[in-house]
């Protein structure tokens, strides 16, 4: 049985500790680093010359900046919600996907966090939303949804990394113990905090891990709602709607699940982790994606009904979103988030790497289009027709979007190579319980 245990953890530990990285990995990293370069470029330009480099104007004061923000937050929240639920339900699947669900959440929220800062007219003053004793003793204006958002996003970053890190400590210890080269050993040793698998430690570790997982649940509900509030609490007819938070939470969920599905497939295929992410796991994930897609579909219907029953301005605004200049985005969103996943009813679809990847991408794209339709499409029909205008994004904005995707990919690649993509102690635990 000892050998059995070995068999389990070795491949997992192999990945991080192996010094000879695969060529594919190197190419992928190179590609994503190029995109990171693009990100640095566009960020730099936007900060140096001003947000005038984007397509924004009056009334379209927000463009890709807030779209990308809402989108990345959705990725993060969906993933953490999923991860947290797995931890709490002690679900078998957690062993397999928890670790990178959390990783996705963390990296997603990092990408998201960029935008609230860079979208400012004077980004170098972003810290003014934090209550510190400033000149003239002016304080932030706490009624503003943007201050709520400041607290939400920072809390999200901290808590997600907590959940992730607490889960990592024992595995870091494992890597420390298996590392051959002293420098690597020191590296992991430092972050393992001297974890020595004491049975006593395990008790507290499990409790803490669980509790943080519990805390994640309300947090992301509030977080996602706060993002929605930034729009819902304004007077813009297309946004001024109490159902918007629900919409953001639900679409965020399908988005996060799809992202997890995507990465699960990629890891399983890329790192040959079939034994850990087995068919049952991806099957379950696919069902979850399908289910949340159905919920999203229901919400789209609800939205239409609500808008058509609302006051004229809101109805006009909604109809403009659905049939106006930006209608394509709305319908593409419906297609990608609601209709495309329906293919998962089909068993072979749930088993195919290609389809899994494509679906993951399509849903993610769909949610982005949904945010575009809400934000840009919402701006277009305001109260005074004299200010009805249009918005066309610029290359700089596109660069920001692609750039953050590159950053996200780069972080994931590094993660897959430096840390166990699947929780090792959990696997050992399962294996022990299976025998018991």
């Amino acid at each position: 049985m000892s050998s059995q245990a070995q068999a389990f953890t070795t491949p997992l530990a192999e990945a991080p500790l192996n010094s000879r990285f695969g060529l594919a990995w190197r190419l992928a990293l190179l590609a994503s680093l190029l995109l990171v370069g693009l990100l640095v470029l566009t960020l730099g330009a936007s900060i140096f010359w001003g947000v005038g480099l984007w397509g924004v104007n009056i009334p379209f004061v927000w463009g890709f900046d807030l779209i990308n923000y809402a989108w990345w937050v959705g990725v993060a929240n969906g993933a953490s919600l999923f991860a947290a639920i797995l931890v709490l339900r002690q679900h078998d699947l957690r062993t397999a996907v928890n670790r990178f669900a959390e990783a996705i959440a963390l990296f997603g929220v990092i990408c998201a966090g960029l935008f609230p800062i860079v979208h400012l007219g004077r980004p170098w003053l972003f810290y003014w939303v934090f209550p510190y004793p400033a000149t003239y003793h002016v304080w932030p204006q706490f009624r503003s949804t943007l201050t709520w958002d400041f607290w939400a996003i920072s809390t999200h970053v901290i808590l997600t990394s907590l959940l992730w890190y607490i889960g990592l400590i024992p595995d870091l210890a494992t890597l420390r113990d298996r590392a051959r080269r002293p420098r690597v050993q020191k590296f992991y040793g430092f972050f393992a905090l001297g974890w020595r698998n004491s049975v006593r430690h395990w008790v507290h570790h499990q409790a803490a891990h669980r509790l943080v997982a519990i805390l994640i649940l309300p947090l992301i509900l509030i977080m996602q709602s706060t993002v929605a509030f930034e729009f819902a609490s304004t007077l813009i007819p297309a946004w001024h709607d109490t159902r918007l938070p629900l919409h953001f939470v639900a679409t965020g969920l399908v988005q996060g699940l799809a992202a997890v599905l995507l990465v699960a497939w990629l890891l399983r295929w890329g790192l040959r982790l079939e034994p850990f992410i087995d068919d049952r796991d991806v099957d379950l994930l696919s069902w979850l994606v399908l289910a949340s897609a159905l919920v999203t579909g229901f919400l789209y219907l609800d939205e239409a009904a609500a808008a058509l029953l609302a006051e004229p301005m809101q109805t006009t605004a909604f109809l403009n979103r659905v049939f106006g200049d930006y209608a394509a985005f709305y319908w593409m969103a419906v297609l990608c988030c609601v209709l495309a996943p329906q293919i998962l009813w089909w068993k072979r679809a749930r088993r195919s790497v290609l389809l899994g990847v494509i679906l993951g991408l399509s849903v993610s794209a769909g949610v982005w289009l949904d945010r575009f339709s809400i934000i840009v499409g919402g701006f277009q029909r305001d109260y005074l027709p004299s200010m009805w205008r249009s918005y066309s994004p610029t290359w700089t904005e596109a660069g920001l979007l692609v750039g953050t995707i590159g950053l996200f990919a780069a972080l994931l690649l590094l993660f897959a190579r430096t840390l166990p993509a699947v929780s090792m102690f959990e696997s050992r635990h399962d294996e022990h319980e299976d025998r018991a």
Partner: protein
Amino acid sequence: MNDSPPFSSGSAPSAPRRLWRSLEELQDAPDLQAWLDAEFPNIARAGSMDRRSWLRLVGASLALAGLPACSGEGAVGDPPLLSPPEHLPGHVPGTPLFVATSLELAGLGRGVLVKTQEGRPFKIEGNPLHPASLGATDVWAQAEVLSLYDPDRSRTPLQQGAERTWEDAERLLATMRTELAFGRGKGWRFLLPQTASPTLDRLVAAMRQGFPEARWHRPAPLAPSGAQAGAISAFGRAVDLVPDLTQADLVLTLGGDIFLFEPGHIRLAADWQARRRNREKPLPRLVAVESTPSLAGARADQRIPLRPRLVEGFAHALWAGLAQNAVPAEAHPAVATLLAELRRAGPRAVVLAGREQPAAVHALALAINAHLGAFGTTVHAIEPVVAPTPPEEDLPALAEAITAGEVSGLVILGANPAYDAPADLDFGRLVRRVPLSVHLGFGRDETAAASTWHLPKCHPLESFGDLRAFDGIVGFRQPACVRLVPSLSPEELLANLLGQAPDGRELLAATWAEQWGADFDIRFTRALEDGVVEGSAAPRIPVALRPDWSPAPRPPLPPAELDILFSLDPSLWDGSYANNAWLQELPKPLTKQVWGNAALIAPETAAARGLSTGDLIEVIAGERRVAAPVWLLPGHAPDTVTLPLGYGRESAGAVGWRVGFDAYLLRTAADPWITSGTLTPLGSQVELISTQHHHALPGHAVFRIVSADRPDAGGPPAKLPSLYPEWRYEGHAWGMSIDLDACIGCNACVIACQAENNVMVVGPEEVARGREMHWLRIDRYHGGAPENPDTFFQPVLCMHCEKAPCEVVCPVNATVHSAEGLNDMVYNRCVGTRTCSNNCPYKVRRFNFFDYSSAELAPPDDALNPHVTIRERGVMEKCTYCIQRIWTARTQANVENRPIRDGEIVTACQQACPTQAFRFGDVNDENSAVSRLKREPRDYAMLGELNTQPRTTYLARIAPTGENGG
């Protein structure tokens, strides 16, 4: 200014030192030089000065030279009463001084007050004492202050395009003097546009006398050429008309635009609105017969779109109906009802023909007025303010002479014929054929390029002179600052040639000394203080229709596919303002187009030719053709194209260079205003930039119209239930009321706001992106059929909502409420989330997407209002209710230890408005004008249903009355 050479201290006897009133001169003054080296060593040698040092220098130089700003050694006479002079006790340095002067438009004067500080003009207001202003201004007057500091203005003399010193110029003038004296002016031609200036006329007369062989040419490219001819045919003499719209029950305009382009337009608008406000009398009617939609037409109770060629027939039918009681069968359907109205109104009706109309139409208009007995009540005849130009003094005559080689020397005073002369003369080429041509111009324009010599002309705000207004009243022109550039005024150049001391003030004084004799001093001082010469109004002259007059027989019109109409431009006038960025970026009242012009045609005409806005067409008249983009303008007459003049400048300066297309290329001496031709689509498209794309009046009552008899705007009650407790505003609570029935959409407020609040110009690309910065915009809506729609203008600025949505969403307290209910914008606290704009239902907030204040289109620092902050990149900005003016008034009141009086605070928009559509004041004060207006039943809050409780409310427009009225 430092790149121009220092001046010889009056080398030429005929050019005494005082001619060159400029900083350079003062810098040369040894005492100043010494003082400078002591005080500002860096400035004394600075290559180019920054604003502060420039101000210091001005201040210093003035102080040292013993000149208080705009006074002292000949700069102005005794200081105007409107502003206490520097050296009197009681004047606080740093507070603005006002200088009364006159600005010219098409040869006529408008009285203005120039607001200066430390000798630096930065804002222009109307002169309440001046009949052509009554305290209001138009966009061109407002924009003059920017032109004054135009970086592209001519700074040195040029010979064949090469820079020359003023000594060289002096030598040139000397040789000219000798030549003129030698041949008694033989072979010399002088080109001076018609201007109603007694002093210029005096000097010209002197020149004619001194050099009898020289020939003079006084073209008036914009003159209502038809008017005089019409008057001569109808009355046997040339007259000018001075309408008095306060007396008119019915105004019928035949073309033109009495609110924008006609002589005295500001006064006409003011009188018209005064008449509407007069509760004793029934609402007057304005009926506009026109081809191009005008402001008058937009405001008219009834508007009749007609092809230019049909206007005469229409007028003729009216005349026939009135005089012979025989309305021609083929007459326009509207004629019958209009006749009834004219008869009813009788002497309280007036018919006004536009400047572009042919003599026949003017004659008919005069005849109808005479028949109705309107002369003496609604309109008066006076001697022509601008003497009619005899044919031999017009441009074609000059062209012939040059072609015949009779011209050895040509002096062009302030005109730019190479650009605006009739195209068939090809004047630029002609000027080049003249051996010696001397051009005095403000900028290095097309004519400067064509002439052998170019001399810088000084800005009206830098020199002395006098100008008659449309009603003949004389206003003095006096400097508001020392000359920023060594330059000459036309008067001074003529004096120089006459061998007189070219001192503007002396020349002006000389003109009036003759007339006033003994009490000259008092009257002269008085005129300088008031800006107007009292009792100088032209006497009314009795006119009677010639008994033998009958309408000119109307030859059958040649069939023409298309009528072509040339019009002045609501932004650039005739093109002389092409390099003024404020005006280039000013949305035209009806099209809201900026940074360019377009050929205006009716939607149905366009549809018939498969054209849509932005399509390039070629307009062909005779053998001339010009390519232009089309603009579909609802209400435009069918089968007619209107070509706005003033664009397509080849050498206007960095701003105006090649913006739009040049309509002058089609304009011939024979028919300067109306001709006929064809158009052919070129099949290509260009992007035309406009600030408002949607025309239709919104469903929810944003713009409200009430009937005269039941003027109730309706809408939500003043106080809707709110979850939030009321804030109490002790003391003052500022508010504004905007009368939509008064607004004529003339844009004066927009430019006034821009000038007052340092609103930046962003340029065509940025406007195309939707980033214009105007704090005050005028929304234009159309209603009804596109063939002849109703047009509505609605000024929109920050409403200063008491429950301001913008403030609640700002994370950093950058926009908050003041104790007096102002919606303050704290620039240095703003981080630029732009979410306040999201939450503003009126979308009046403007964002600095780039660093506009230091972009190349930004006005020079000197032109900026020193009382208003410059906004940096990344911050939001918006209307502040001119908070700087509120504080000025508050300070004054505190100094005098009294409360602020109602009407003491006047916002820039309010001050500029000819029709007093804006009222600002304290809504806590029951009896303030604004409170009274807000109590009127016409009062309503835009989007009041949102319950943001805006401090700015509107007075609903009153629907047209009478026949075809609403």
